[in-house]
């Protein structure tokens, strides 16, 4: 884990605070892949804008292509995360990527969906229960799985005789990592999410205004753990039964807009032109509801802006809660999702006020709280620039486990 602190070059360098360590690890894992997340986010925003302007229809190959291009980085996120996590934890990256690819393999995904739909209890070798989990676009499961791989891989290398290493090290590492991942580590996000969904549903019945407040404030953490997916069925059910949702959509919109305000504030205050450009791009994608680049490239590595985003999102969520704004359609929660708040007039007015509070509040809070700008190396990684040859070699050595 010390690899992260060294490589990240974050302001928390040298500190031993466990929370800082966790943030550094998350930052280290996400930095190399944020460039594709921004690209995908902008393409998704472009898709939505073109669709809304009527330039492309939903029934067209243009939509199909643009949708797949914008979504692929998110759908196959576990594979990207596996590679970068392996570099952080010191596991072999391609084996991690293979295990992640197994989790999002179409037959596995279809089998899980089918089993969940019909009530079939999946087992491994007829005895070990396999819990349903949704792996495409997930974050936490693959990070935990690669962490496990980084622990088991050296043990396997130690035990297997030199002559048999080429065959048995990858076989045993991939087998044990995949199985432990599927049975134990993978479902953790699902279990957290299910508990959260139950708690949020209960809160929504007893203190409804509190739900958008909490979702507005804590969405960044829901996204990190992937547990926000567990709230989707709650929102879908609300939309189907009531015709609107107050649980997920308003709070999520507040949070994404807050992250946009934070990124723009960082862009304004940052001195490094590349980081300015990165932060502004992240701000734009967050306005359209794709906030991962703001979260992992600004909020988490800089820490104080994360606090500003939580406060700003929470305050805006609180306003959304007390005015009981209702989202009437499942559009990516950002500025474009305002079309789902059009009726009645008071609803759209309050939704716009929510966005303004989220954006302006977080913008100001970020400037007031301040932040320490990341170093040149971190900025280079965020911008997707290739590391200098020596660094790259060092990284490869670490990643390959040659310590």
């Amino acid at each position, binding site marked *: 884990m010390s690899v992260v602190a060294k490589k990240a070059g974050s302001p928390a360098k040298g500190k031993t605070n466990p929370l800082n360590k966790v943030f550094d690890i998350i930052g280290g894992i996400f930095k190399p892949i944020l460039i594709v997340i921004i690209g995908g986010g902008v393409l998704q925003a472009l898709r939505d804008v073109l669709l809304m302007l009527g330039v492309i229809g939903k*029934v*067209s*190959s243009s939509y*199909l292509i643009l949708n797949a291009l914008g979504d692929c980085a998110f759908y196959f996120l576990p594979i990207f995360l596996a590679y970068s996590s392996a570099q952080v934890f010191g596991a072999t990256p391609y084996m991690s990527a293979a295990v992640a690819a197994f989790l999002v393999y179409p*037959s596995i995904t*279809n*089998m899980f*969906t*089918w*089993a*969940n*739909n*019909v*009530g*079939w209890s999946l087992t491994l070798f007829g005895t070990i229960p396999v819990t349903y989990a949704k792996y495409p676009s997930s974050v936490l499961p693959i990070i935990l799985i690669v962490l496990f791989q980084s622990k088991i891989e050296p043990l396997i290398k130690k035990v297997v005789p030199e002559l048999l290493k080429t065959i048995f090290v990858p076989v045993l590492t991939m087998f044990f990592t995949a199985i432990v991942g599927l049975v134990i580590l993978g479902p953790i996000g699902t279990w957290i999410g299910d508990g959260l969904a139950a708690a949020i549903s209960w809160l929504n019945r007893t203190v409804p205004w509190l739900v958008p407040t909490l979702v507005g404030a804590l969405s960044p953490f829901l996204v990190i753990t992937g547990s926000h997916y567990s709230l989707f*069925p709650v929102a*879908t*059910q609300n*939309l*189907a*039964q009531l015709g609107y949702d107050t649980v997920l959509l308003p709070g999520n919109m507040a949070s994404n807009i807050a992250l946009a305000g934070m990124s723009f504030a960082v862009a304004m205050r940052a001195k490094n032109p590349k980081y300015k450009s990165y932060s502004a791009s992240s701000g734009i994608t967050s306005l359209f509801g794709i906030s991962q680049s703001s979260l992992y490239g600004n909020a988490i590595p800089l820490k104080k802006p994360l606090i500003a985003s939580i406060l700003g999102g929470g305050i805006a969520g609180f306003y959304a809660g007390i005015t009981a704004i209702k989202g009437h359609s499942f559009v990516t929660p950002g500025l474009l999702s305002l079309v789902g708040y059009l009726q009645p007039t008071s609803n759209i007015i309050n939704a716009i006020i929510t966005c303004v509070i989220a954006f302006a509040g977080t913008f100001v809070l970020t400037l007031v709280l301040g932040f320490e700008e990341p170093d040149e190396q971190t900025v280079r990684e965020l911008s997707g620039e290739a590391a200098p040859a020596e660094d790259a070699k060092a990284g490869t050595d670490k990643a390959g486990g040659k310590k």
Partner: protein
Amino acid sequence: MKRIGSILLIAALVLSLAACSKGGQKEFTTNLPPETGELGEDIRIDASNHIQIKKAEVVRDGEREILLITYDWYFEGGKARAGFEQYVITAKQGGVALKGDLSQVESIKKLVTQINVDEKLEDIQQGFVLRDQEPVTLSLMGNESWIFKEGKPVHAYPVTVEVPVAP
């Protein structure tokens, strides 16, 4: 001579391309399943899969009421396995997805049974935990993600079957 040969070759190439493009002008329309179906009807849900829901009954399981459906599955095109590789049947009540439950099913193995060419797998069962007495909408989804309608790609859609829930 070389020049004439080249011209003839190019002409042949252009003509063959023209012939290809003429052939490619055919509008490509895949099998379009009906949007709705009825109990007892043999429904072709995609290019190869047929489902016929023969029975839908409510059975009690302690406090719970379960809608138990019984259906036949027929696959055009050789060997195939039932289950997620070919079709998915889900259920909703008032737009809310119902939880699948196999506790009242006689033989759950039928859900993953392999059949041979032109064989029909009969009396497959699935159960869904009912929320109330509202009618249930069953969704029968085939194994295609996309279908082509007059040359345009369209998301494949499920065939829906309304099932009344008798008190």
